[in-house]
């Protein structure tokens, strides 16, 4: 039998784009003048402007990463860092400019809101243009707004937490982010408040040659609980796009936070995202992460288990096709006794795509009686795709339970024949196997996102059978 070739997929439904229409765009490249201009445009308070300028200095000092995917295609001088869409913050859907609204309609944002979601903060290019939240949440003291508003209206909270979980000098792209950040979500859940429906935001990059540097800051106070969902998407342009967002999560004692993302970037995107969580005593943070699209991704969410009895679970999947190099994984620091971490990672590669699972498990001397179990599985759909696992385990005490399992597999011809003997076409059989492989991840997602993920898998697998 001839080998099955899966052609490059048709991403039309994701690749629609509006004409590059914005009222302000700064010149390319990154200088002190630009950072100051951004700061001025945003009416930053002095303390924020100082953070930006300090970050720029650090950015200029730090080298590019010497490990992981090759980033030499990235020329920072070519990337305009700040794009603002037409229109100011709108409080109702009707106030959002029509062209932007159409984009969101195609992505199904208002529908999601209409059904079960408590609030929507959708970011179009660099500013949040639409925002809403149910009134009872406001009454309970929950704050859900864009980062700029948070800096203006809740400076004490932002000052206390901003770039504290992820230090500015963490790596070059964090420094860049801190210098030019723009947009993003801010959530504050006060002590003891439990949200039983998820909050969500949707990011979308629309302008060629522009980076997106949104900042997400979530604080879940003692005994509170939240599920936050972030979706990201960008249409396709020929030039390389950069995304260097930052997510900081603070989970107080006995609190719970579930942070779910489906990132569906266009295939020219450099996605260099940094996400960290600090977890308090008997608290828990769960990450659910789906990485689709992008040209290169470097994404390693990290949980720092600082409180005794803190827990974390990471459930992640990535899917790399032609010309894609997805370098993803999870990091956890066990920094207190009786902490636990569970990692369940899956990757799918096809058509020459490369998936790497890169991880760190560090269990400190004081983290007695901690547990960590890691499982990563890879599925390769052809003979020329690549899958790799690079775990780092740094265990500094004997009193731990630790396990690591890794497996790499291919779809067998026998399995395809079995499914075809039930009347299922070869293409559908492969999609079915991949969906089944991804199921442990998709079942963790809210239903709209699970459906979107299955659609993405089907889209990725669509193509001629040779």
């Amino acid at each position, binding site marked *: 039998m001839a080998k099955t070739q899966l052609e490059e997929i048709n991403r039309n439904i994701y690749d629609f784009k509006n004409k590059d229409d914005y009222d302000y765009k700064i010149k390319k490249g990154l200088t002190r003048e630009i950072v100051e201009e951004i700061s001025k445009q945003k009416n930053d308070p002095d303390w924020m402007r100082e953070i930006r300028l300090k970050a720029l200095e650090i950015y200029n000092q730090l080298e590019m990463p010497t490990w992981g995917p090759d980033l030499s295609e990235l020329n920072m001088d070519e990337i305009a860092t700040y794009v603002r869409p037409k229109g100011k913050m709108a409080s109702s859907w009707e106030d959002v400019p029509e062209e932007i609204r159409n984009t969101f309609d195609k992505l199904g944002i208002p529908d999601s809101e209409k059904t079960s979601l408590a609030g929507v903060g959708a970011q179009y290019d660099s500013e949040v243009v639409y925002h809403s939240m149910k009134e009872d949440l406001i009454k309970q003291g929950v704050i859900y707004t864009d980062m700029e508003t948070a800096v203006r209206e809740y400076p004490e909270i932002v000052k206390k937490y901003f770039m504290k979980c992820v230090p500015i000098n963490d790596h070059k792209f964090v420094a860049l982010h801190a210098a030019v950040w723009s947009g993003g979500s801010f959530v504050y859940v006060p002590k003891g408040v439990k949200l039983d429906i998820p909050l969500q935001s949707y990011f979308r990059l629309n302008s060629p040659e522009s980076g997106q540097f949104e900042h997400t800051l979530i604080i879940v106070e003692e005994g509170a609980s939240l599920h936050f969902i972030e979706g990201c998407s960008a249409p396709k342009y020929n030039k390389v796009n950069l995304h260097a967002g930052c997510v900081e999560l603070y989970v107080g004692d006995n609190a719970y936070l579930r942070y779910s993302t489906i990132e569906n970037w266009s295939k020219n995107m450099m996605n260099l995202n940094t996400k960290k969580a600090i977890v308090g005593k008997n608290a828990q943070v769960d990450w659910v992460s789906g990485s689709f699209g992008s040209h290169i991704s470097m994404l390693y969410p990290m949980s720092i288990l600082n409180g005794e009895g803190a827990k974390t679970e990471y459930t992640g999947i990535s899917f790399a096709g032609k010309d894609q190099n997805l370098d993803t994984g999870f990091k956890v620091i066990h920094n207190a006794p009786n902490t636990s971490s569970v990692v369940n990672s899956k990757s799918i590669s096809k058509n020459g795509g490369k998936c790497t699972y890169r991880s760190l498990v560090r269990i400190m001397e004081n983290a007695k009686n901690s547990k960590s179990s890691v499982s990563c599985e890879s599925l390769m759909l052809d003979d020329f795709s690549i899958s790799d696992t690079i775990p780092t385990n740094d265990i500094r005490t004997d009193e731990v339970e630790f396990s690591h399992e890794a497996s790499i597999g291919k779809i*067998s011809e026998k399995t395809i*024949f079995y499914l*075809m*003997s*039930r*009347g299922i076409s*070869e293409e559908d059989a492969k999609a*079915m196997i991949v*969906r*089944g492989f991804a199921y442990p991840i998709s079942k963790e997602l809210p239903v709209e996102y699970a459906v979107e993920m299955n659609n993405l898998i089907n889209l990725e697998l669509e193509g001629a059978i040779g």
Partner: protein
Amino acid sequence: MSKELLNIKDLYVNAGDKEILKGINLKINKGEIHVIMGPNGSGKSTTANAILNNPEYTKVQGKVELEGKDISNLKTDEIARLGVFMSFQLPEEIPGITVTNFLKYAKNKVTGKPVKIFEFKDELKKYMDELNMNPKNMDRSLNVGFSGGEKKKNEILQMLVLNPKLAILDETDSGLDVDAIRTVSKGIELFKNDENGVLIITHNNKILRSLKVDYVHVLVDGKIVTTGSQELATIIENEGYAKYKN
């Protein structure tokens, strides 16, 4: 209407460079149960796989017809949609797809019609009762962690649900205990009617003790060397294949 269901004409099949089938002729009419017996390596499973055009095998000569239509070069899924089913000797495990969802999907593909979920679940439950299957298996991943017996029963369940014109059972009885073999026989009886046919491939005749069949073919070294009635199976059981070998 012609009674002819399957007609294999002078079929030669290779696996890689190796010649396996060397001129098979076999005709199955509607309403008949046929058995192919034979020693290991004689080409029994190859015959089953060749009917479904498994790409691991190459047809060198001859053809396979279903209801007079040449299906020799159709793709496996097309053949399945025309009404051919095979119960596998070693059913594949598919993680993440439940038995219910899988069968619902397959039924939709085979019938080309939407499947009504409640009716479908009732039907599934009815058949699972008949086959002494644990109803919880409906919600488990297809064949994952199933015992050998559960997998075979699950194949019979699929046969009943998909209701093909021709069911090929490849070594479905092998490795099963007496009770499980009876259950499989019961499944075949439940399936069988005047409009469909069954081809049972086996290397022993345990299943034939609890099932009435119309023809027994003996396959040795890629050829059908003799054909008889059910009694032939008993003779083979007593005497072995020695006298058919060169």
